[in-house]
């Protein structure tokens, strides 16, 4: 640390004593200047009023959930906008008596700007607005502040009524609009329903079930039909070849047993007779005939088989026709054919029905989307409409309340007052400020000079800065004459300070009693 505070203070004190003329004259000058400024400084009077604003917004509770109103935090800003509007400001100035008959528009404009500049509108608390007006005339300050407050309350209440009416009107218009929308949605739904009868809720499932049933029927019928066809083919086969053969075999068997019978008779006769014996010969002839008949029968049977295989018309002889088995088969065949015909017809019918149902299902699908849309529109509109209806009733009540001044949420909390004491800088401030500045300024100047002055005033700096031995510090030796002169000079300076202080005090007193 090159210079301690003590050194600085000491140096300053030396400087003050050395340059006491400068210090004292600066003190005197500053004081005279301060007093002069204080004398010409205009007196200002401030009147203020506070207004209590209840936290209430008419549209907010009404439109809760349906619409969002902006949250008003800066009440003073709103009040400022309201009051500083040209219309309201004009009214305030007119009522506060600023305008005279011959005030021109330009002058009015200028006055408005001046009043605006001197008016402060502040948020004091959460619900308090402070309107403050400063003027050189206390009466006018009071009147202007009062008018501002009154105008604000009036305008706000007017605005509120207007606001609630506007809210009602708005909701009413919305109700009408939604009513129209709802009606049109209903109409659309009705038309759609009349156009598509089968488009009822649940039809789709029904149609699907029917389609399923029809498909089942078709499958079953097809199976039955196939079965019947197989059955018919089988009976037909039986009827065509097998019956002839059976008859022919029966006859051959008869011939074979006759031949065997005759053969045994022949054997017996041969035992006793010769071959020429007539009986034997006749039996022999008989056997031959029978054998021939067997062969014929065999031939006939082969032919029938061949004919049966080639599908040719089989001549069924009578003996077969009367055969009960044959008859049975024929009956079965006819029954089977009838059955087949029936099944075929059923299959066709089922297929037709299935196509129809499929067509219907397609129709239902496209109709359902349209219907859903219409229904949705209808539901939404209906809900909003009902909601709005309820809100309209609330708004009506609010509006009526405001019209009857029931919902007043604004009142003057602290009325404007007539200011008796001037506000702002008063003469006393100038007096005290002048004295303080007069004391501080010279010292500050000297301090500044000391800071930039390179000349050495502190002995400690010699050894510190030049690194040379400091032998001794010789204080100033005052000669008696010098001392007397110094004392006289000090007295003069002291007297000058006293005179200045006296002057300041006297001016202050004169000012206080109102002489100046």
């Amino acid at each position, binding site marked *: 640390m090159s210079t301690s505070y003590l*050194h600085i*203070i000491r140096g300053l004190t030396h400087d003050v004593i050395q340059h006491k003329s400068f210090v004292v004259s600066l003190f005197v000058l500053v004081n005279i200047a301060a007093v002069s400024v204080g004398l010409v400084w205009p007196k200002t009077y401030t009147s203020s009023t506070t207004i209590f604003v209840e936290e209430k917004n008419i549209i907010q509770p009404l439109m809760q959930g349906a619409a969002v109103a902006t949250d008003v935090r800066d009440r003073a800003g709103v009040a400022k906008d309201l009051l500083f509007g040209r219309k309201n400001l004009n009214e305030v100035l007119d009522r506060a008596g600023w305008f005279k008959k011959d005030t021109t528009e330009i002058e009015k404009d200028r006055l408005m700007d001046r009043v605006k500049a001197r008016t402060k509108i502040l948020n004091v608390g959460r619900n308090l607005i402070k309107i403050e007006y400063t003027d050189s005339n206390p009466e006018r300050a009071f009147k202007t502040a009062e008018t501002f407050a009154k105008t604000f309350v009036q305008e706000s209440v007017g605005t509120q009524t207007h606001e609630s009416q506007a809210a009602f009107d708005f909701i009413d218009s919305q109700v009408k609009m939604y009513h129209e929308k709802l009606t049109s949605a209903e109409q659309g739904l009705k038309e759609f329903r009349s156009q598509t009868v089968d488009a009822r809720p649940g039809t789709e499932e029904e149609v699907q079930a029917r389609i399923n049933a029809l498909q089942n029927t078709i499958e079953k019928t097809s199976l039955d039909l196939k079965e019947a066809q197989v059955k018919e083919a089988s009976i037909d086969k039986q009827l065509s070849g097998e019956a002839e053969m059976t008859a022919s075999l029966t006859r051959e068997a008869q011939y074979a047993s006759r031949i065997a019978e005759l053969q045994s008779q022949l054997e017996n006769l041969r035992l006793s007779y010769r071959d020429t014996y007539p009986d034997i010969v006749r039996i022999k002839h008989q056997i031959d005939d029978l054998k021939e008949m067997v062969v014929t029968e065999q031939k006939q049977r082969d032919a029938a088989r061949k004919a049966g295989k080639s599908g040719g018309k089989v001549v069924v002889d009578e003996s077969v026709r009367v055969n009960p088995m044959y008859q049975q088969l024929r009956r079965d065949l006819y029954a089977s054919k009838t059955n087949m015909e029936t099944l075929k017809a059923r299959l066709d019918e089922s297929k037709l029905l299935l196509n129809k149902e499929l067509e219907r299902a397609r129709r239902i699908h496209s109709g359902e989307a349209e219907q859903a849309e219409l229904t949705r529109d209808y539901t939404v509109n209906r809900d909003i409409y009902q909601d709005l209806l309820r809100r309209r009733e609330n708004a009506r009540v609010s509006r009526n309340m405001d019209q009857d001044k029931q919902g007043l949420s604004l009142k003057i909390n602290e009325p404007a007052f007539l200011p008796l004491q001037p506000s702002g800088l008063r003469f006393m401030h100038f007096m005290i400020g002048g004295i303080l500045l007069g004391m501080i300024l010279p010292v500050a100047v000297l301090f500044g000079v000391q800071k930039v002055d390179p000349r*050495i005033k502190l002995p*400690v700096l010699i050894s510190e800065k030049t690194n040379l031995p400091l032998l001794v510090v*010789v204080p100033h*030796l005052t000669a*008696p004459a010098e001392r007397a002169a110094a004392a006289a000079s000090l007295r003069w300076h002291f007297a000058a300070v006293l005179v200045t202080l006296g002057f300041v005090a006297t001016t202050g007193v004169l000012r206080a009693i109102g002489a100046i």
Partner: protein
Amino acid sequence: MSKIEEALKKIRAQGNEGAQKGMIDTRRQLVKSADPSLESRPQHQIVRMSEPRSLSKTELINSRIIFPAMDDTEVVNAFREARTKILQATGGRNCSILVTSVSNTAGCSFVALNLAVAFTFDEARTALLMDCNIQHPAYHELMTGNPGPGLGDYLEDETIRVDQIIHPVGIPRLRIIPAGREPTPDREYFTSQRMLQLLKGVRERYPDRYVIMDSPPIMEAADTRILAEVSDYVLLVVPYGRSTEVQIAAAVKAIGKQKLLGIIFNDEPRLPKLLRLGRRQAGSAGS
């Protein structure tokens, strides 16, 4: 005021007494004082120094000369301290000390004179103050009446003897060689053999004599540098608040560090008595 006056009277009475005693002593030794044969006995020479008159305290105060019983003890003590330090530095041997300053208004003559006076406080020492500032002589005021020949005369006129330019001024054990008349400027007096002889003579004549030379500011006169060379030691007077660090450094450079005894910070302003609080600490920190 009355108390101070009483005190002054008292001091004056004592001083007169001492002066009268001195007068008696000097009268007794008057004849022999000029005798060169006595130079080898220094201890007895001092008492034999003639003191034609003694300055009163008022005169001293008005001439801004210190004396031991002064009210302003701070100044006296400062010079005493300076003297003690010089004695310490020189090892008690007598020497010639050049007192010069940084600037013209540094109070160089005041310091030189009072330093010389401080040496004479000790009854065993004498001081010779030589005014080498011929253009601005400082001590002629102390010489009442015709100051007589001075240094200038001596250097100019070879017929003038040394004892003719040494004058008493009314302060015990202090002799002064005044500046004398201004010599013609075309000669370098201080480098002359006569000047060197003078210096040697006055210093060696009495072993207890301290020669103090007052000179012009070192940066302004070439003479001072010459004197600095011929003198044993140099003291630099720095005035309060009038010289910068650079000026001091330049002056020191001109003198040469080996001869510089130290710096005397002169004319430090003093606060009115009421404001002297803290002065002690600051002063002690400064020294």
